[in-house]
């Protein structure tokens, strides 16, 4: 970088900090832009597969003669593209940038890390194609072949090495709360993924216990991979955007450790009523109910941080997405705890209600937070402004409203479906016919969300070409001459 502090005569401390931050952000450019661009690509692939699967569900004749797109393949391919492609790649990009920021270090390994992005893409592509070609493992959330564990393991090892390296030469002696969550995520994910593949594909677990391993894994991908990355982002970006420290640091500490301890155990609530020992299911229920603790602490903390600053939602695209996501985190977790109670589960299990719940977690919470993060990070990496505020609005409203329709429709339909299923006098085909209009509502929601994703991809494409206004420094989203309403009496 040509303009190191030495070339500037006696830089004021404030100027020096600005330059350091520019350098940190620039050091992430290669790697994080690779991860983000790939994530956006997979978002589009995943959306296309989602629409196909959704349409097929109410109109089974649609594209029915293409075996590789039959519902039972398009659906897991959609999941793989979204979870391992979009979610994980957007998550890793954000995780690396956050750690560089938090430790005030440049991102190391400028060739290795972009190479991991390439490997990650190839792995996901291999997985998605394998599913469409009929090589799915038929184990939910981990349909992609077990050999992918080696490739993901390699990428994560490089990411762990980079994280440790940045952390060890950090400037401040404080470890910010986001950093804990990020350390949690990068150690949890490889342990989860590799041990799940072992339990599921070797005799390390047998028969019905494989189902327990399956749900231990699947639930924890959300709980110990996406959730910590999402919360780390929220804990950094809400205070940073509104310029106000987290309300209570004690609460964030409690929130982290209670999540680490309880979330781990929640997975077996997916097997209530199933053929596993009662104590195992009870443990899952207890873990799920105890999740009230971390969720309430996080919700209270974020709310109290935001109080008095809600008007910024009007001005900041990042904040809009992140606050929507944070609120949905609270909602999805409450819903999850309730759903694990036997009396609720008896109805909601095996229905579309669960599908709505899963999307509330992975989409309304995690995906929306990632959108917010990309809106914040990308301009700072590429020194360009987003080129159109209108498209950002389109993106926000289509995805926010689409998600709401999706959730309301399927939650209601699922609940009714469950009650009807538990009444043996109602013929099964009547239940099927009852759900069809609601499956249409899901497709309508999916179209809206896809429109949002296309506008986001369009914005991102123009960002890559730096079509927006040039930004000399990374924080000039507010023009210096413009009076900015800074709320709160800090």
């Amino acid at each position, binding site marked *: 970088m040509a303009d190191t502090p030495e070339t500037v005569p006696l830089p004021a*401390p*404030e*100027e020096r*900090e*600005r330059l350091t*931050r520019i350098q940190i952000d620039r050091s992430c450019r290669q790697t994080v832009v690779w991860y983000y661009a790939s994530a956006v690509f997979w978002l589009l692939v995943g959306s296309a597969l989602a629409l196909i699967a959704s349409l097929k569900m109410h109109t089974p004749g649609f594209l029915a003669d293409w075996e590789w797109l039959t519902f039972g393949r398009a659906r897991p391919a959609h999941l793989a593209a979204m979870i391992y492609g979009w979610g994980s790649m957007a998550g890793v990009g954000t995780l690396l940038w956050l750690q560089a*920021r*938090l430790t005030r270090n440049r991102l190391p390994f400028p060739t290795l890390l972009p190479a991991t992005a390439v490997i990650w893409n190839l792995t996901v592509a291999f997985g998605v194609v394998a599913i469409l070609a009929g090589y799915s493992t038929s184990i939910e959330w981990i349909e992609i072949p077990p050999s992918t564990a080696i490739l993901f393991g390699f990428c994560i090892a490089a990411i762990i090495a980079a994280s440790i390296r940045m952390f060890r030469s950090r400037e*401040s002696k*404080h*470890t*910010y*709360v986001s950093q804990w969550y990020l350390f949690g995520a990068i150690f949890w994910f490889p342990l989860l993924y590799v041990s799940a593949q072992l339990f599921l594909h070797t005799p390390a677990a047998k028969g019905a216990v494989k189902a327990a391993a399956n749900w231990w894994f699947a639930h924890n991908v959300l709980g110990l991979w996406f959730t910590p990355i999402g919360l780390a982002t929220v804990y*950094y970006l809400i*205070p*940073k*955007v*509104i*310029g*106000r*420290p*987290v309300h209570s*640091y*004690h609460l*964030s*500490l409690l929130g982290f450790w209670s999540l680490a301890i309880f979330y781990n155990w929640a997975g077996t609530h997916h097997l209530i009523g199933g053929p596993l020992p009662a104590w195992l299911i009870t443990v899952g229920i207890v873990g799920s109910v105890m999740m009230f603790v971390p969720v309430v602490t996080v919700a209270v903390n974020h709310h109290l941080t935001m109080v008095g600053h809600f008007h*910024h939602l009007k*001005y*900041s*695209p*990042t*904040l809009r997405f992140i606050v929507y996501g944070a609120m949905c985190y609270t909602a999805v977790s409450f819903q999850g705890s309730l759903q694990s109670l036997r009396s609720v589960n008896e109805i909601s299990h095996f229905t579309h209600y669960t599908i709505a719940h899963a999307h509330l977690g992975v989409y309304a919470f995690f995906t929306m937070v990632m959108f917010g993060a990309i*809106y*914040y990070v990308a301009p700072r990496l590429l020194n360009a*402004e*987003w*080129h*159109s*505020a*209108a498209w*950002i609005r389109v993106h926000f409203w289509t995805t926010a409203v689409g998600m709401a329709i999706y959730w309301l429709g399927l939650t209601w339909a699922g609940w009714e479906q469950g009650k009807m299923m538990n009444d043996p006098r109602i013929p099964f085909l009547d239940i099927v016919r009852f759900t069809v209009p609601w499956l249409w509502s899901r497709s309508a929601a999916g179209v809206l969300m896809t429109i949002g994703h296309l506008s986001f991809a369009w914005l991102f494409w123009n960002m890559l070409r730096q*079509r*927006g*206004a040039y930004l000399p420094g990374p*924080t000039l*989203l*507010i*023009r210096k001459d413009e009076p*900015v309403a*800074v709320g*709160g009496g*800090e």
Partner: protein
Amino acid sequence: MAAFYLALWGLAGLLGASAIAALVWAIRRGEFDQLREASQSIFDDEEPVGKVTDRFPDKRF
């Protein structure tokens, strides 16, 4: 089987107790002091507390 469950409960108790011990130890060592400072650590002179750092982009485009 009974011995197995006894061992299980013993192990659970042991784990719980060591978690509490670790917490007490960490508090004694001052790991939880200066929490306020830690929450300020993401701000600096150039992006101080009170500065808003994100806004809808200019609508010239």
